């Protein structure tokens, strides 16, 4: 990959909207027992929004790292690794209860439906993120180019050259 900053931001938002959101909705649909449950869907969606937001903030740093590389590229392996780092950061901070919109159980209050501090959350959040990450990552490996024929020449940006 040889993304530019604008390309990173645009592609990240695109993947969030067209893979992240639908996959999350499908995920919670199955999780809730083949029905839509707003209270289960919201925490997962917000969790994904948070990861995407963190990613948007980290993108300039990734671009800086690219400028120190002679080829100014971004190996697929880095993309893979840092995606999980982003997930790990958000999950750890959420678990500590430091992200107000991601629910954790507080002593003396009824436990929320989705509790990021619970032990079950590790497996569930990892499974959810894997479901979003795998198709997003595979899309970057080439299928994006089948739909957006100029995307690879624009460093991940959309539109004309």
């Amino acid at each position, binding site marked *: 990959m*040889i993304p*530019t900053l604008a390309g990173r931001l645009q592609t990240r938002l695109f993947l969030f909207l067209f893979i992240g959101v639908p996959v999350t909705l499908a995920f919670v649909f199955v999780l809730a027992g083949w029905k839509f449950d707003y209270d289960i869907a919201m925490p997962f969606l917000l969790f994904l929004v948070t990861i995407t937001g963190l990613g948007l903030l980290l993108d300039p740093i990734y671009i800086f790292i690219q400028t120190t590389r002679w*080829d100014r590229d971004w190996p697929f392996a880095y993309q893979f690794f840092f995606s999980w780092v982003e997930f790990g950061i958000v999950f750890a901070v959420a678990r500590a209860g430091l992200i107000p919109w991601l629910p954790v159980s507080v002593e003396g209050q009824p436990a929320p439906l989705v509790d990021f501090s619970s032990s079950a959350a590790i497996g569930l959040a990892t499974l959810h993120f894997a479901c979003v990450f795998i198709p997003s990552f595979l899309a970057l490996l080439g299928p994006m180019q*089948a*739909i957006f*024929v100029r995307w690879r020449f624009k*460093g991940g940006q959309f539109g*004309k050259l």
Partner: protein
Amino acid sequence: MITFPVRFRVRQIGIDGNTMGSSRILLCEEPGAFLVGKTDDADVPLTGDAVSRRHMSIVLSAEDVRVRDEGSTNGTYVNGTRVAEQVLEVGDQVSIPGWLLELLAPAESAASATRIAGVEVDASLVSRLVITDDDAPPPSRRTFPEMEFAGKDIVGIEALRASGHPVEEVKFCAVGGGLGSFVWVDHLRCYGISASDIRAIGTEEVCYRTYQRYCKNSQIPDHERLRSNSLSRPDNIWGFPGYALREVGKGIGVKGIFQVFGEPTLSESYTPRAGDVFDSLDVEAKRIGWSEMFVKAQVLGLRKTSDGRYAVAYKLWGGEAQGEARNRYVIADVVHLATGYPATRFVDDFQTFITNHPDSRAQVANAYEPHDQMYIEAERRGGPVQVVVRGRGIVASRIIQRLHEARAKNPDIRILHSMRTPIGARDGAVFRKARRLVRNNVEIQPFNWPKSCWGGDLRVEYERAGEEDRGVMLSQLGGTTTAERSDWIAIAERGAEEGWYRPVYGNISDLQPLPSPGPEQPDGVQVSINTVEGNEEVLNADYLIDCTGLIADIRRSPFLADLLDTYHLPRNHGYRVTDQGPQKGGPTGLRCTNDFEIEGLRNNQGRVYAAGTITTGGPYLAVDSFLGLQYSAIRSVDHLVTERIHKVRNLGPLRSFGGWTKWMVGARP
């Protein structure tokens, strides 16, 4: 019918490309084959170091006059195109190194046949060179396409029709017929243009033939890997699925997928096999109907027409048509020029050596010319063989690998690797915060430009830069590099340890033939090097393989030279970075816009685009690569869409996906 005697004007060409000395006339009075060359028994003895002993034959029959290359080292050219055998017409120019032969019109009468410019020529000198005085007859012009084209920058369609030559009209015409033309035509087809609206003109029926020849000569046979990316597929405008995935599908192996995942940092960069690239091009050629669009012909000229189009003059090669019927015009709304490397030139000292010491020609080779014989001889010969490999690029790496393979048959082959200076681990090129990796005194880069030149931030920055800044970036980011391949690194390291590979640093100051030390002993070549320590080191080698590349000069293509002169087209320039700032260097490629349009050729609604090496120094760095050809193609075809005058429809997401689906199932676009 041929009228005898057939007359050629023979002129000697100096090293500067101009004619020198007096003209001579070659008279051939009867049918037959006349050998031209340096050997004593040649019918037409021509001297010169780059002339082969048996260089070519002039074959005369009652029907036609033709030239046939006799397997010469430096080739026989007709009107600037290298030929094996070619029928000549009056005015055709046959060139071999140092000589130009021009077929003259038949004499008006038998008496005047032997009178040239008023000088009576001895008729007994039939089929021999006849020296006339300096006042040779005025140069006969070729009648096609000069009759319609010469001295004009705009021609009328009526005049072309009146010429009697067949005139065809199409919308799109690709000139070149090689990979550049193919990729552009592939884009047009995938954008929905019908095959009947497109003509592609070139001298090779298979679009990758010339490329394949360069690969073979530089020791990349079909089973070896190229220096190209998995997603750079000239047969697929989307670049997906890449060659690595194709290998999985063909059962070749899954290693490529992991290479693509980790490259270039965690694994060696994946590169496709040459043969796989060619096979996939064959499949795509069939899918888009390349053979329906392709015309095997030599393009002789291009002119604007008075109705806002272009006339392309070409001469059919082969086929049924004979004589004047082979000369044709095609009128096109949009023309694409991708003529590739024009006649190529060697580096100066190498050229001087082969010019001065033709007998030692078998001892030296440029890596891009056929030189398999060297390896075969070195393998066959028992005892020590010393080979000097000059240069440090990717070709040198591959040549050294080939010599290493030859060592399996003759373990006494020693490699002396001549490089100008050593490069320390921290001496790699610097571009802002980044430094290029160095291994074994060679700069390492996966491809011939830093990756982001193809589609990352460097592409954007370079395109936006002014002429001078582009020149500076080009010189900072370019340079000779090789790919990081563990087998190549191992060869250099093991060879140095075991004593059969040795790098030698310094400028080559002299090349001299080394006479054979005794009967039955082969000749050699003496290479003198001014070493970096200030000493002179003399290497007595059996062979020298020069891997410093070829110099491309677009003016050496008669077609491009005519265009440059007729329309006063501007060219790009190279820049050197010096202490006083950037210094402008010599001219490079044709100047074109960011959409690869040659603005000087714009003709009302007519457009001319270019691609490939002839656009060097233009809006894109990696023009001479598979992906670069696709980039220039998509830019120029998108430009046609934006201008809305040639009815090319945009390739948006839906149409793109539809076209890709057709590619996947092999359906015609």
